[in-house]
């Protein structure tokens, strides 16, 4: 693979295209605009030195009553989404794959930092998003599936679990550890070829030569990073900046905080320069139109960008 120092060019392109996206007419707006949401989270405040991250309650604190039952059911669904809610999951992912330690780990988009921040107002489109809608977004994009209904047992259980994890957290106040705490873009941009070298040395053992992950029987153990079993082109993780944050804090598994900013960006770019399921918001069957409307202004990403002579965003089934 050739060196692809496309980062500065991309930012420029993104800036130019952003204007176009806003000017685009709205006749092709998605059928359910409320699901149109894996937008970037605002930057979380830094953790003051010598202060701990918020500590969610322990499992022993789950009460033994109907509420506790629902908390446990939510936790089970969060860890075993594919097995317990197969009709809503189109790939092989589980929520816990990206929200480590059952949604408890700081800098892995923990649920205790998320739940108290909804409903959230978005100036960009003058809309209010609920917690349930945010989860539906993860079903549609991260899980490449079909979101369960807002009042379904599944989303009620998942909401109850997040509510319980947030016990004692302040409402409406962003906590340190929210989201993935992205490292700043490296000065010289990122490099896909260098990212491949990081991948082969540090990630391949688990995630496989072709990013396919590893299974035991039908159970996914190491999740897929690209290809049909992975998140789709509309998922937040397809942004290089977002993936870089997740990776730097959480990967290689158990050895987070060992990659430099540069390595995290490079390997995130390598992963996200591979094909994955199509963005379900595909506009008129056109990658270019979809890029204009949804990707040009969405952090740093390679959807619709030509890499090594191939335009990305073809999708895989």
């Amino acid at each position: 693979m050739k060196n692809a120092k496309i980062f500065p060019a991309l930012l420029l392109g993104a800036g130019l295209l952003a204007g176009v996206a806003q000017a685009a007419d709205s006749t092709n707006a998605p059928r359910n605009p409320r699901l149109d949401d894996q937008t970037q989270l605002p930057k979380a405040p830094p953790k003051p030195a010598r202060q701990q991250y918020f500590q969610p309650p322990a499992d022993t604190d789950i009460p033994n009553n109907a509420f506790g039952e629902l908390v446990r059911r939510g936790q089970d669904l969060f860890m075993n989404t594919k097995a317990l809610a197969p009709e809503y999951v189109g790939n092989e992912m589980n929520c816990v794959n990206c929200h480590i330690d059952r949604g408890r780990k700081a800098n892995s988009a923990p649920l205790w930092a998320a739940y108290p921040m909804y409903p959230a107002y978005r100036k960009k489109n003058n809309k209010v998003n609920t917690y349930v809608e945010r989860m539906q977004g993860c079903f549609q994009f991260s899980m490449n599936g079909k979101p369960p209904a807002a009042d379904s047992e599944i989303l009620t259980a998942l909401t109850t679990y997040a509510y319980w994890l947030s016990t004692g957290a302040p409402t409406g106040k962003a906590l340190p550890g929210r989201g993935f705490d992205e490292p700043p873009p490296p000065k010289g941009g990122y490099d896909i070829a260098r990212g491949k070298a990081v991948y082969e040395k540090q990630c391949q053992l688990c995630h496989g030569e072709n990013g396919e992950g590893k299974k035991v029987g039908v159970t996914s153990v190491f999740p897929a990073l690209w290809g049909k079993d992975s998140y789709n082109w509309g998922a937040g993780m397809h942004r290089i900046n977002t993936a870089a944050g997740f990776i730097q804090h959480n990967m290689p598994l158990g050895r987070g905080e060992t990659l430099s900013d540069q390595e995290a960006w490079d390997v995130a770019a390598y992963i996200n320069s591979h094909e994955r399921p199509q963005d379900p918001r595909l506009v008129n069957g056109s990658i270019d139109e979809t890029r204009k409307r949804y990707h040009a202004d969405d952090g740093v990403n390679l959807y619709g960008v030509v890499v090594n002579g191939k335009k990305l965003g073809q999708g895989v089934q």
Partner: protein
Amino acid sequence: MRKPVPQRSPRFLLLPLLLPALLPLLAHAADGSDIMQKGGANPAAMPCITCHGTDGKGMAAAGFPRLAGLPEAYIAKQLADFKAGHRENAVMQPIAQSLTPEEVAAVAKAYAELPKVNIKPTPVERPQPGSGAWIALRGAWERNIPECTLCHGPAGVGVGDAFPPLAGQSALYIENQLKAWRGTKAVAATRKTKAVAAVPPSRRNDPNGLMAHIAVDLSDAEIKAVADYFAGLGESKEAFDESQHRLR
């Protein structure tokens, strides 16, 4: 396939003379199950079954590990690591050093073909915080310790070539390995006791240091509890059902 020359037969004495001529033949003749039962061509490569059991399931009380059903590449890697000294053990190192590369390949293949450990896909019980099951199924993320099953597979049945099963191994063996990765810290002298020197880790062969930091950060009590947990899973007689999801 031609059977290898049995040990201690009169012909064995001729071997040194014939060796150059025989070498290509012997290379092909290395027979895995023969090595298990009779050892390698070099007598120092003792028969594996004396310690690893006639069924390859190890000897729990002595801390001799199960080899039956371990991945071929993993077995070969361990034998190479013993040889190279990345994994130190007074018993296994001389044995590994006495096996030819062909014998290593053959015996690894033969053990991999024996039955794998089998754990029923019954729903896992909810682990209690502070228990061995908790470390195995939930980890200790505040110390960056992922749940063991995240790498060693559901119920510890192993994943691919690089992540060996923990189910099927004895508590003593699991404990020994975790302590081998950890070594022991130096203890300073007190008025009544002498200083004890640190013992460096004797197992240093985990890819990218994935295992070592985990062993280092577990307490003795946690090591014992988690070893007991995996040893206590036992083995199911029912065949592994690949079509059923294993829950976390």
